[in-house]
């Protein structure tokens, strides 16, 4: 019976994973899933509307759900449903609370009083929970309607704050710049498929289509100075200005090239496509299809809507077969949320593994191992999907480096756990897996994480070798540090760290540091070769290069100190924990300097987080070097 429990846990975890991987059940008569798969070109990448919806919401408000604390139900059932409203019923979309504002100064600038921000719950139970702090008592997300009256003032503030470097902006200025950026993007979304000011864009387009031949003739005649239909010419000019405005507001290229060209540059915005109609004499069918979808959505005609989606899809299917297969997979990937699911599994595995040190080591230890394995497989699948979507090796930006560091470190833990079977590997895996995914989540708040590669980094060969190997080096150095933390905390504060466990921990840390030295060295060297190949110098003392070198040197220092007998077990642990500081410096700190060839992805709040992390690690080192008499384990009874 006892043997079955871990298998049961494994089954539960697998069911949880499977339930997320299944396509979501349709909650509406409208086929929004199919709509969400339609491709648009944004930030240089062809992506499904579903991704546009999700990454926009993440950027605006740090989450994908659209709801107010006082609501009992979310305002929309999916990010795509939110996006459809932004596209087609902007008055409704404007009322959704999707702009996160935390800065009190910014709130008062926008004229939002404390009274406005206060949440009034209807049910007494919820009121009570709010008093206890389990539910928010003030709201931090506000609708466009709330912000709109003060938008010109916000624009003025943004213009003042913009020229200031992000590193020296005040929190207020940062909040202003961020909110203003979100509003600009919101406007882009609203102008993607139709002008937000019309009630019936389809009718307008049909009228435009009919008017085109006479209108163009009239404008030509006017230009030639001949007699012409003034009314038709005037109407043409007005529409031209209207579509010109549309094409200037948004950079979202939603209209595929008519001739089926594979060139991304041939995609156009709706506005550009409509301006093109003045030349071609007819409105593009894709523009009409989207206008028709808008009409069906506004008129609440699901059959019409679904028919049109299917029709439009089949129309572009032949020309963009591979792309559509990718957008389909990407929507499934978005819905499955493999990284979020893994985070949950890591937490459970961590708890099981910790408890296994106190009770039922066999059952809980094995369960934890299975859960870690499941979570690791899920992240692997997620990373592979991202690689396929992007056509790139796994690490291309800061976000994917966080995913990959976690993946590498958990992979090593699985090996350790398979060898030692003492749950230490599982605890470390739960910890590092969860922490790196949490970091990745915070890095994803800046928008779509599948970014295009800047020219200087555009080399799949070097991304696949240098970047991957050096990132595994980071993972291993972090892992050694986290194993050391387990040693310090478990040995210092519990009696559970017996001699065998302690010895195996020492061996694990030592082995992982050897591994880390090898990989960080080889990775750094490959970076040098890349630099020599492309820049004509092997080593340039660039901050990121120096960061990687410091990791290699630090690992070498630990090994030499160990070989020279300068450190014993506790010294090894203290130095390994310091390795965490060294690695986090190289990973994030060097980017914060804002100099050098590798300075991509500066994040503000990351600076504070880095400081806190460094301080915590120093505290752990202080714990490690306490005299042995103060450790709870290792006391001879």
């Amino acid at each position, binding site marked *: 019976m006892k043997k079955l429990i871990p298998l049961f846990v494994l089954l539960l975890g697998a069911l949880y994973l499977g339930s997320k991987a299944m396509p979501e059940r349709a909650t509406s008569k409208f086929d929004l899933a199919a709509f969400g798969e339609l491709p648009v*070109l944004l*930030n*240089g*990448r062809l992506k499904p509307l579903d991704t546009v919806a999700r990454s926009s919401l993440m950027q605006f408000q740090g989450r994908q759900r659209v709801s107010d604390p006082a609501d009992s139900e979310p305002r929309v059932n999916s990010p795509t449903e939110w996006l459809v409203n932004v596209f087609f019923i902007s008055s409704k979309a404007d009322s959704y609370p999707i702009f996160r504002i935390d800065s009190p100064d910014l709130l008062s600038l926008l004229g939002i009083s404390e009274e406005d921000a206060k949440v009034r719950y209807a049910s007494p139970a919820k009121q009570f929970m709010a008093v206890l702090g389990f539910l928010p008592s003030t709201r931090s997300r506000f609708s466009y309607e709330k912000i709109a009256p003060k938008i010109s003032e916000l624009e003025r503030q943004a213009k003042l704050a913009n020229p200031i470097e992000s590193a020296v902006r005040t929190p207020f200025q940062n909040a202003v710049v961020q909110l203003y950026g979100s509003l600009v993007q919101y406007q882009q979304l609203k102008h993607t498929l139709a002008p937000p000011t019309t009630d019936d864009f389809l009718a307008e387009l049909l009228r435009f289509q009919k008017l085109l031949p006479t209108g163009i003739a009239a404008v030509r005649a006017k230009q030639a100075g001949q007699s012409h239909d003034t009314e038709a010419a005037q109407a043409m000019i007005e529409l031209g200005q209207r579509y010109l405005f549309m094409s200037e507001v948004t*950079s*979202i*290229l939603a209209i595929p090239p008519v001739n089926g060209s594979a*060139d*991304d*540059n041939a*995609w156009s915005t709706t506005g550009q496509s409509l301006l093109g109609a003045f030349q071609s004499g007819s409105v593009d069918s894709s523009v009409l299809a989207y206008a028709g979808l808008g009409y069906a959505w506004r008129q609440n005609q699901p059959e019409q809507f679904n028919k049109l989606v299917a029709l439009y899809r089949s129309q572009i299917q032949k020309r963009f077969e591979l792309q559509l297969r990718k957008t389909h997979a990407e929507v499934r990937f978005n819905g499955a949320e493999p990284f979020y699911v893994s985070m949950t599994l890591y937490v459970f595995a961590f708890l099981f593994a910790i408890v296994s040190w106190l009770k039922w080591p066999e059952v809980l230890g094995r369960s934890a191992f299975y859960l870690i394995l499941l979570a690791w497989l899920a992240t692997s699948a997620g990373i592979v999907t991202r690689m396929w979507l992007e056509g790139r090796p796994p690490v291309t930006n800061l976000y994917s480096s966080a995913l990959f560091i976690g993946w590498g470190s958990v992979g090593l833990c699985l090996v350790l756990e398979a060898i030692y079977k003492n749950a230490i590997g599982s605890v470390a895996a739960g910890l590092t897996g969860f922490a790196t995914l949490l970091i990745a989540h915070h890095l994803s708040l800046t928008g779509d994480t599948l970014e*295009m590669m*800047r*020219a*200087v980094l*555009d*080399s799949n060969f070097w991304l696949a070798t240098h970047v991957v190997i050096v990132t595994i080096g980071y993972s291993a150095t972090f892992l050694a540090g986290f194993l050391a933390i387990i040693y310090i905390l478990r040995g210092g504060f519990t009696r559970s760290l017996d001699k065998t466990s302690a010895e195996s921990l020492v*061996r694990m840390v030592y*082995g992982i540091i*050897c*591994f880390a*030295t*090898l990989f960080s*060295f*080889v990775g750094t*060297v490959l970076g*040098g*070769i*890349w630099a*020599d*190949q*492309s*820049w*004509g*110098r*092997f*080593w*340039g*003392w*660039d*901050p990121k290069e*120096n*960061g990687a*070198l*410091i990791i290699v*040197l*630090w690992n*070498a*220092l630990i090994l*030499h*100190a160990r*070989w*020279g007998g*300068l450190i014993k077990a506790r010294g090894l642990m203290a130095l390994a924990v310091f390795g965490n500081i060294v690695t986090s*410096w190289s990973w994030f700190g*060097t980017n914060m*300097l*804002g*100099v*050098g060839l590798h300075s991509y992805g500066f994040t503000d709040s990351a600076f504070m987080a880095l400081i806190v992390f460094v301080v915590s690690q120093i505290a752990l080192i202080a714990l490690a070097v306490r005299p042995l008499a103060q450790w709870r384990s290792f006391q001879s009874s």
Partner: protein
Amino acid sequence: MSDLIRQFRDFFVSLKLTVVLIALSILLIFAATLDQVNLGIWAVQQKYFHSLFVMWRIGDIPVPIFPGGYLIGGFLLINLIAAQVYRFKLTARKSGIWLTHIGLILLLIGELLTGLWQEEFALRLDEGETKNFSESYRSNELAITETTDPKFDDVVAIPEKFIARGDPIQQAKLPFRVVPKIYYPNAALAARDANTPGAATTPATTGIGLQATATLLPLTYKQNERNAPAAYIELAGPEGPIGTWLVSADPRFPAQSFEYAGRMWKIAFRFERSYKPYSLTLLKFSHDRYAGTEIPKNFSSRIRLNSPDGRDDREVLIYMNNPLRYAGLTFYQAGFENDDKTTILQVVRNPSWQLPYIACALMTLGLIIQFCIHLVAFIARRRPAPKAVA
């Protein structure tokens, strides 16, 4: 062996020294990385790595406060070699460590040679332009060119440091002496209207200096800026001064022509040039962006390479991660300006470029061998001893 020598040897052989040296180099690299924000990458290399001591200026006196790259590297080299000689026997078990350490010795030597020999220049080309020289990133020179013969120019280039020194310079090719009057290591130029009353006085007596003045600016260390020195230069013939010119290394400041002793001359302060026995012509610079964005997708320069001996006359494409290697130099795509009409190539000479490759190959191999030896031993230890056959 006397006690003193033994102690001396033990000090250099010891692992303690290794650990201390590694710790010192980590601190050095960390401080140098931080200081890049203030000094820029080049000055940092000079101050921290290509030096025996890191100097701190207290008042005007430089005080050594930390061992520099050459000192730490040197000690590390001695420590390594000494350990190799006295501590390690050449056995199969230690072969990985041997390879790693020999590789490291080569790497340190290579870095020293790179520090001594590597040179970097910039080559700026407008579309259609042909050049047979590249320009230094930091050094400048005063060029006095005789242009009397339209077929060729005769250039006398005086390095900036002589101008800075201020002593009169006499050169056999020049019929006059060059007397630097005022020198600004970095200067701003301003227009000057001599007709307005109260206009700033200028030491210049001829040329652009009558319409423009230079004022001293603090030195810049930023990576994307360079210092533009300016000077007032007097030329004096045997019969007395010919005139005083304002010259500036600012690229917008043109060369100034004058006539002396029946010959035509040009005077200019410019980026120091390194002439080549071949020329490069920019045919086309391309800057591709991802659709609908400003994110650069690729930069590339189509270049025609021509050598006067006729051996090379071909087109090359220089783009990201794909430099041109020619005649001991590497030309890589470093930047662009002027609305995508001008390409900037970086030109690097590094004669010891193979050393790091050899060194790193040895070290990688050594580490892999050592790691595998440890791994095999670890697995062998964990495998339970086979049961004795009854």
